[in-house]
């Protein structure tokens, strides 16, 4: 689909101040930053080169050089400053700052963040009507962060949701993320040598180990192939678990999803808890176990 004139104008107004602040930037880097191809960058630069202020003599035109793949703005005329954040960018920044407030401990920084949020929100009345709520900061958040930054391992007492039991784990944290309002971390389980995701509020106890988290461990490929159908009504499942799927396609009112998963118990519970919107085809033995569990549950009510 061809681009509208106004989209190109918007990009031109962003390109000039960006190049001015980043003189000598490569055209390939500009293409990457602005998510367009190098041919489009060149076309934009050629267009900008023809624009300027009334009079349109060389002194009034925007002056820039783009030779040998490098671009520099000599005279931006009045495009020496970036455009204001638009409403969505402002929302993303303000909500990001709200998340930050949830995980920092420094009260002085908290005040700076509050002031900054007010400053960004001042131009957009809608922002006061948009909010982002997460769980409160988990008790062991700082310890997990510390383990990650100091590349150390953790001894965890963890309440596993998939197995519904309390387990002892020895893990090397790799990254922290926020999903569905909860804080998680990805870690290498040192015992099984497999990558696992942990929800921080399910940690019952946690301590730093002196054993450094090794970088050389490999992730086991020992995982089950699964194949299931998801009703489009529950499209969010395809997004929520997108990292599990190797292949997904829409067929009428459903998505056909395939992937790999090494936690059979979790997969079983996922299918049961989203019944009848997820239907499992493979692994066949897991399908049988799901039916057996459903029968046992129904028997409680007879």
């Amino acid at each position: 689909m061809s681009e509208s004139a106004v989209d190109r104008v918007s990009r031109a107004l962003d390109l000039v101040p960006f190049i001015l602040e980043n003189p000598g930037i490569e055209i390939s880097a500009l293409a990457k930053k602005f998510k367009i191809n190098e041919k489009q960058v060149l076309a934009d630069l050629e267009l900008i080169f023809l624009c300027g202020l009334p009079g349109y003599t060389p002194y009034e035109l925007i002056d820039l050089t783009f030779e040998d793949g490098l671009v520099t703005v000599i005279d931006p005329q009045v495009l020496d400053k970036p455009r204001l954040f638009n409403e969505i960018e402002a929302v993303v920044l303000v909500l990001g700052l709200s998340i930050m407030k949830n995980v920092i401990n420094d009260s002085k920084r908290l005040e700076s963040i509050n002031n900054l949020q007010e400053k960004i929100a001042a131009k957009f009345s809608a922002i006061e009507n948009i909010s982002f709520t997460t769980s409160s900061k988990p008790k062991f958040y700082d310890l997990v962060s510390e383990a990650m930054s100091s590349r150390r391992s953790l001894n965890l007492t963890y309440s596993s949701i998939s197995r519904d039991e309390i387990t002892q784990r020895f893990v090397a944290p790799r990254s922290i993320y926020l999903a569905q309002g909860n804080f998680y971390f990805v870690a290498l389980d040192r015992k099984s040598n497999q990558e696992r995701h942990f929800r921080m509020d399910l940690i019952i106890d946690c301590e730093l180990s002196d054993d450094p988290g090794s970088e050389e461990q490999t992730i086991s490929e020992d995982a089950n192939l699964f194949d299931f159908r998801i009703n489009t009504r529950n499209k969010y499942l395809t997004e929520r678990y997108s990292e599990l799927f190797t292949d997904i396609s829409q067929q009428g009112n459903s998505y056909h999803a395939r992937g790999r998963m090494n936690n059979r118990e979790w997969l079983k519970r996922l299918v049961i808890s989203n019944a009848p919107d997820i239907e499992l085809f493979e692994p066949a033995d897991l399908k049988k176990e799901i039916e057996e569990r459903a029968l046992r549950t129904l028997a409680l009510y007879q």
Partner: protein
Amino acid sequence: MSSEKTERLINLTLGLLASKRYLTKNEIFRTIAGYSGTPESMERMFERDKDELRSAGIIIEVGGLDPLFEDEQGYLIRSSQIQIQPNDFSKAELILMVLAANYWSQSNLDDSAKNALLKIASIDSGVTEQIDSNNGQLLVQNFNHESSQIRSLISAINSRRYIKFTYKSLYRMVAPIKLENIQGFWYLSGLEDRWMKRFKVIRFESSVIVLTDTEPFDKDQLMKDSTFADNSEMSLQKLQAFIRIGKCNNLRKNGLVKPHDGEWESLELGFTDQEQMIRDLLWNGDDVQVIAPTTLKSELLYRLQRLIK
């Protein structure tokens, strides 16, 4: 796409931005490159150009040149209304904004976050280079919603425009008032007729259409005349159930647990989202037995039956 038109729009923006006073249409037609033809065609061209620039968020101010001649209108773009000024943000604030934008790099709001980062890099490239990666930083993952849907809702709330969408098989026209993300899910509060209702965005069955060709709604007046609808989807209910001793850790941590017999404990737990509650109960399989509410129990049994071929 016409390069001539793009060039004219850029020149018009630059001309109005550089001017220290309102420029009349005649001055614009005479001095800004790209306007030609009959007075009528230039007039039409200018009206379309103004609308397009405004749709891109460029504020074009209209003002009278002379109080004695009201029909002589002029046009101006103020830098403070469309550009970030050099002293708007301190270096410490720019760093905070980079960190805040980086949170979204694995979410479907990543595009907007990256655009914000480009603007920050246009103020001080050093700041973004210093914190260019998410090394050790918290990341927001997925977001469960198509970003275009969220963008439309934010834009409609900001511009106070009515929206249309399909929800629970009904075609709705709503004045959007508030958007909240609670535990990873977006909820829209808005007025449908005079009723204030809350909609779960993930359950929208169509794209959101923002009615840009109608007048903005008067939020204060609408709110004054509104009545809160009883939205059973979000009203508080109480679960009563038996759970196996030592099991159902995801339910027991938020509920009131009492001993029952050697195998079971009783559980009472408040909830608002029935759909999520059913999923949580099914997750625990035969380690939980629901007593009440009966509607929830019936739905649970129906879903279990569907698992058996």
